[in-house]
């Protein structure tokens, strides 16, 4: 089966600064994929490359084996909700649905109108009068009603309050259940993704730290705590992601396909959030100091 998204040594540069470098990734179809990573990790760049809004400087990226933006047919297969969910401020909701119908041969007007009605939105309302949450819902409706096989969402809930966030993600789940589209959703908050995703990709400094089914990831990561000691003595199939030592105690975050049977360790399952944090911390500690970045 062709991967929904496949990237090879992908890189994108702005001036001298690489926003994404040497990114290789394969995401299977039929999943709801969470793309998580700190700000500046290249999530947005990766998604814009995937949808053809950016052109790679090096490497290649393909959706279902096709180059993004290469043909109207390819574009029709992919729905996109951009960061800050752009809409035309002076246009009403109805205008936006008309726009979608004009621009997409596979447009599903019934679905679009149904969603707007369900959300309790007045089709005559102008986009600039909508709240952030409502605008995000409108953008999602536009992306969904073209009936894409793959839906890409670039931090769609970053600017929303917790309630609107929950509503948006619920809406997304309903759509996914109805349409069986593949979804790739980026966020820097694991809690957003935990609720909706079944597959996780952790991107740090434009490199894929870990990718896989969330269930499998959770099942194979543990926190070990016990009296202070060095890491030696762990079986060979245990990979240490993070270690912290105090005078008396050692805490390790490990990945293993087997089980840790040493009774001197207290073994805990690792929550998804801690798991992701372990990968991020690990990467930062190894490569460079953390980058502080403020995004508008």
């Amino acid at each position: 089966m062709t991967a929904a998204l496949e990237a090879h040594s992908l890189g994108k540069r702005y001036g001298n600064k690489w926003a994404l470098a040497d990114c290789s990734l394969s995401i299977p179809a039929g999943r709801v994929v969470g793309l998580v990573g700190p700000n500046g990790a290249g999530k947005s760049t990766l998604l814009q490359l995937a949808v053809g809004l950016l052109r790679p400087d090096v490497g290649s990226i393909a959706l279902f084996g096709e180059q993004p933006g290469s043909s109207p047919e390819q574009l029709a297969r992919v729905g996109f909700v951009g960061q800050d969910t752009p809409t035309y401020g002076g246009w009403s909701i109805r205008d936006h649905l008309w726009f979608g119908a004009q621009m997409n041969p596979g447009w599903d007007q019934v679905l679009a109108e149904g969603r707007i009605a369900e959300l309790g939105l007045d089709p005559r309302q102008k986009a600039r009068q909508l709240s952030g949450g409502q605008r995000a819902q409108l953008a999602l409706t536009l992306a969904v009603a073209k009936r894409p096989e793959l839906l890409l969402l670039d931090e769609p809930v970053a600017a929303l309050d917790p309630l609107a966030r929950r509503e948006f993600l619920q809406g997304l789940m309903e759509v996914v259940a109805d349409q069986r589209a593949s979804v790739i959703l980026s966020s820097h908050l694991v809690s957003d993704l935990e609720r909706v995703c079944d597959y996780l990709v952790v991107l740090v400094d434009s490199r894929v730290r870990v990718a896989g089914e969330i269930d499998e990831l959770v099942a194979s990561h543990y926190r070990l705590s016990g009296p202070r000691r060095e890491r030696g003595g762990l079986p060979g199939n245990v990979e240490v992601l993070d270690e912290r030592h105090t005078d008396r105690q050692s805490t390790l975050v490990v990945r293993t396909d087997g089980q840790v049977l040493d009774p001197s360790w207290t073994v805990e399952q690792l929550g998804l959030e801690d798991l992701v944090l372990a990968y991020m911390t690990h990467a930062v500690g190894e490569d460079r100091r953390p980058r502080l970045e403020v995004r508008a």
Partner: protein
Amino acid sequence: MIRVAVRQFRTEAIVGVTLLVATAIVLVITGAHLHHVYDAFEHQCRAARDCANASNPVQNVDKSLQGVMPIVVLVTPALLGLFFGAPLIARELENGTYRLAWTQSITRKRWIAVKLGLVGLFSMAVAGLLTWMVDWWAHPLLAANGDRFGLALFGIQGVAPIGYAAFALALGVAAGVLLRHTVAAMVVTGVGFGAARLVVTYLVRPNLASPVRKLLPLSAGSGPSIGFTNAGGGNVIFGPPQVSVPNGWVYSTTLVDKAGHAPTAQYVAHACPVIGRAAHQLAASGGRPGAGPSGAQIQACIAKLSTSIHTLVTYQPASRFWPFQLAEMGIFIVAALALCGCSYWWLRRRYA
């Protein structure tokens, strides 16, 4: 896609058409009067066989409109570039809506082609119609003053403004794509368009075709200016005449001797000793004007000089007006197409 492009351009189009219609109404009402005044006078002077010397009173009708209309035609292409061209793509880039527009089932190439095609053709039509209306309105005035090929009037007639509009629009789009900021793009468009017009007017247009060089008798046109001064110990002044070529574009008028050289003051003083003497007397008397040569003496002098000296007029004849118009339009349209290509290339490079 075409309907979406039309919808996005609706407000601008309505404003454009409204202004055009309003202008048309003013021109039709006042133009009828202009034509009437012109025709009545032509009829009258032809009956009196005195059209050559008479000045048609149409030039004194609607003075304020006569001042305004050329400016309207002059700036319209720039305004089209500023208000239609600069925001066309820049606004989508500025507001982030390009991420919505370019992720529909329409390729980038088609999106750009439709937008540029629609707004470009609309702008060219606006400029063309406006110029055509003003040409009709101003026909009596142009006929009366006979200077339609001149630098001031050439660019506000015929088909050249269609090329200007295409160029200004493409410049606005390109600036918008490059700067991603509507207001900055508008500034660049205004300045760039003005510069391009000046460069073409003063550096390109005069070289489009070699001018006609025609030798006329010395007495042609207003006749040479001849006089004397006490400067430099008394000198003869001998200047070229004013020669008008009806509806032609005169580059220069000079005086030449048989070898093609400009006659020197010494030569004139030698040929016309009466003037040379007058100049010396003037200098000797410390600048106090004396009797000087009589009109008859000067005429005699000119008659004597005219055997060896001619007036050389260098000009583009009226018959080249339309070839020049087409060339001017072509230059700007080619430049516009090149700019459209650049815009597309920049978009593909920065985006995808």
